[in-house]
């Protein structure tokens, strides 16, 4: 079975210390005021006495979805799903910074990096993994609420946790269900914040605002247009896999 890299998170352990957010910012040079990951919580009321234990701090980041609407929205192929590892990748060299993918993510996991002017989001820290390290947020977490790895590999920490808790795993469900690969053990707290994926209705507007793309489109002719059109319709459906023949 191919890998499926994912995060398995015990939100009940998160203390909202923001260690993971700080670590991610440093590890990935995330510009001031921008973030690749987050901690969400519902408005909670301070009720004296015995707690119903409802307060949850919910760590999150790009969920490297099964059905990534961001991929569908990307006109250049810069954003793609790597079916060997299950990651949703942004190839910066292909990203033209058009920003289509940003509203296309129902979890607001993407942003336009102010410095590079390209789309950015969690990439599971590939440089660190190449060096045998855990992603920065996972490594630094005091309570180890964040666990990362291949959930198809029962010998990995994430895989073991995933299999052992299969019954009680939950996902945050957005209005557009992208089947996120971020699994929470039990109640993750706020589950209603995911929105609707807004995939651009027309590539025409995009073409006009991006002369670079226009040039490329002219260069490669009708094939590109046909491909873009196909992507638009197929991309947000569940049969998106046919889009790739990897």
């Amino acid at each position, binding site marked *: 079975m191919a890998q499926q890299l994912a995060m398995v998170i015990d939100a009940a352990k998160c*203390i909202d210390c923001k260690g993971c957010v700080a670590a991610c*910012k440093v590890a990935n040079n995330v510009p001031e005021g921008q973030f690749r990951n987050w901690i969400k919580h519902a408005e909670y009321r*301070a009720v004296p*006495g015995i707690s119903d234990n409802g307060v949850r701090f919910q760590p999150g980041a790009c969920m490297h979805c099964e059905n990534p609407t961001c991929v569908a929205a990307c006109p250049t192929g810069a954003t793609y799903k790597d079916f*060997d590892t299950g990651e949703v990748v942004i190839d910066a*060299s292909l990203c033209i910074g058009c920003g289509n993918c940003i509203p296309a993510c129902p979890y607001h996991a993407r942003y336009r990096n102010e410095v590079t002017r390209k789309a950015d989001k969690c990439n599971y820290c590939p440089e660190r993994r190449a060096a045998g390290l855990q992603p920065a947020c996972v490594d630094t977490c005091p309570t180890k609420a964040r666990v990362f790895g291949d959930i198809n590999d029962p010998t990995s920490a994430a895989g073991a946790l995933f299999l052992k808790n299969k019954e009680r795993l939950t996902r945050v469900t957005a209005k557009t269900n992208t089947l996120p690969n971020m699994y929470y053990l039990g109640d993750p707290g706020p589950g209603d914040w995911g929105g609707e994926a807004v995939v651009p209705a027309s590539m025409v507007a995009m073409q006009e605002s991006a002369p670079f793309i226009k040039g490329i489109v002219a260069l490669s002719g009708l094939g590109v247009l046909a491909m873009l059109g196909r992507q638009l319709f197929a991309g947000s459906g569940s049969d998106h896999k046919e889009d790739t023949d990897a």
Partner: protein
Amino acid sequence: MSRRDFFRASGLVAAGAVGGPALLGGLTKARAASPAKPAWDSRFSACDMCFNKCGLIARVEDGVITKLDPNPKFLKSRGMLCARGNAGLAQVYDPDRLKHPLLRKGARGEGKWQRIPWDEALDMAAQKMAEVREKYTPCGHLFTAGSDLQSQFVGRFAEVYGSFNVTSHESLCLVSGSRAFLDTFGEVPFADVLNSKYILMVGANRFEALVTPDSIDLMTTIRENGCKLVTLDPRYTKTAALSHEWYPVRPGTDMAFMLALAHVIINEKLFDPQWIADKTFGIEQLTAHVQRYTPGFAAEQCGIPAEDIARIARELAAAAPSSMVYPGRRTSDYEDSTQIRRSFAIVNGLLGNWDRPGGLLAARQVGLKGVPYDAPWYDENREDRIDAGKVPMMFEHEGSFVVTRDSVLNDDPYPIRGWFIYKTNPMGTAPNRKKTIEMMNKMDFVTVVDIAMSDTAWMADLVLPSQSYLERKDPCSGLQGSVACACVVKRDPVIDPLYESRPLFDIMKDIAGRMELGEFFDFTLDEYREKQTREIPEALGVMDRDGVYYNPSKVYGIYDGRIYKTLSKKVELYNQRYEQMGLDPLPEYTPPAGPAKNQFRMVIGRNAMITQSSTANNALLHQFLPTNTLWLNPEAAGRLGIKDGDLVEVTSPVGRQELKAEVTDRIRPDTVFMLSGYNTLSTMQHLSHNNGASINELLDDDFDAITGNASMHTTFVTVTRKVA
């Protein structure tokens, strides 16, 4: 064909490669399976963003630190690094850092500085210190240092210079708690949080004010070991939110709660009679003493239902000895804070949890040794410290900052006119900032060694730039942490020092050399470390390999067959020494004053992003906590016509500040709260200057009657909406 292949074929790839990073690099899948040689060097160090000293690994590329990671072998910090730890880079590379020695030009605090060469600066420091000693005797000079690994050299310098007047940060923080536990058990304990079955957290906020390993173990034990957590706090902190039970205790009534717990445990005979008979002193006196402190009495005082108090007492006792009243750290709260903490210690005494799993642990053998020296004798010197005898049980090596400050202001009993400060910021951490300014103004010469222009440096005469923890070599240090470890750490430079910064050790050595005290600093740090580790010769090598050395010493049962270091040689429920000194041998509860109409009690506290005044100017942490706010309950806010986000004016008997209100039910209606560290006077702290409010400008400077610990919860303030 995938879109990617299509684009590659169509030439977009080449176009992309022009503007982007190496395309092949971008396409190559990074796999966790085969670690490649990383782009960075990895070097061990220990964090210095707070006092915990968590083990870290600095990733260094081309002489620049690019990331700080936790050292997985560092058990005390459980292989983690918090947000502050991660923000260490922002401290080292802070553009506001001090870069070269600065000499004050204008009036104190005016901010006019002249850059001078190091030689001139050291000559001047030595000459001014000599002058002060000449004119006012050696005790005419005060020395103050934070809890840094090099701070011991300030103590050494003060002693060879001849001054007894040494203060640390501790009397603004925890000395009353240390005193109380020391006077009950004979030493200050470590809490075995990880193995506890029931933890009562009162006056501590362990999920926000991170202490390793307790903060982390607390989560592990409540989620994985079924430990129950009950929190008392006027604020609904994150600790409160994640607890099984939370009670918004009326500020200042914790002792009533503790005495009521003792009342129930004793009257219902819920203690282990054998343990109480063998190991404790004073159960009869305590039994008589707590009769009047019924749960009903406590309920009225604390605002917590009597049946809950009784139930918590029974639950604690049922889980004993693996249960505890968590000792907590910041015990600078009231004028009877030592007695308040004594009541905590006494309940622990009743639970019989000393030296046992899940209870309070004695200090373990770390293996490090001190490096002794013979200080010279000065005939002309004073007999004692300036703050001597003003409170009965001060800690000699910590002093009392607020008592010392009053003494200095009154020349009582003698004048102090010189002040040397290393890496602590009393201007930003001591209550009643105006008094600290006055104290500064009294000085002939103030020298500050720090990495940033703190408010204390801002008021000095001479400011010397020191090296950050990642640029210097430090002595070894022994750390304790519950069952986690008794370990030794050291720091070696991970990068070359920036600017003209120098380590405190060199500065002390150079000043000593200029004052004919050179013989006391006649060694290198390597030689010093060798001496410290003379009984654990393998330690230095192990630290080079792992970043930490563990001493495999005993954890539990350290006191088996050993006597307690108290007068009765037992756990002192009743303190005989206090009795001899005319202090209450058992804690007597005095109801705290309530706020007058339209006033609020101001409380202090922490969150996980803040270390007193040293993080508000950190560019990374600033993104999480851009300013401080005044927490105000909706009920009170409604009465005052204040809406969330309104600018409010806060007035106390000693000062006035403005900041935005945060209207929240996470605080009691009679209490307000703000974080420390903001609104610095120093304009050379760009992010914290003119930003939010300074809490130490507002806090009144009362102190604990036994130890002289500042009492930070005794100030009442009025809050009004600021009309634009």
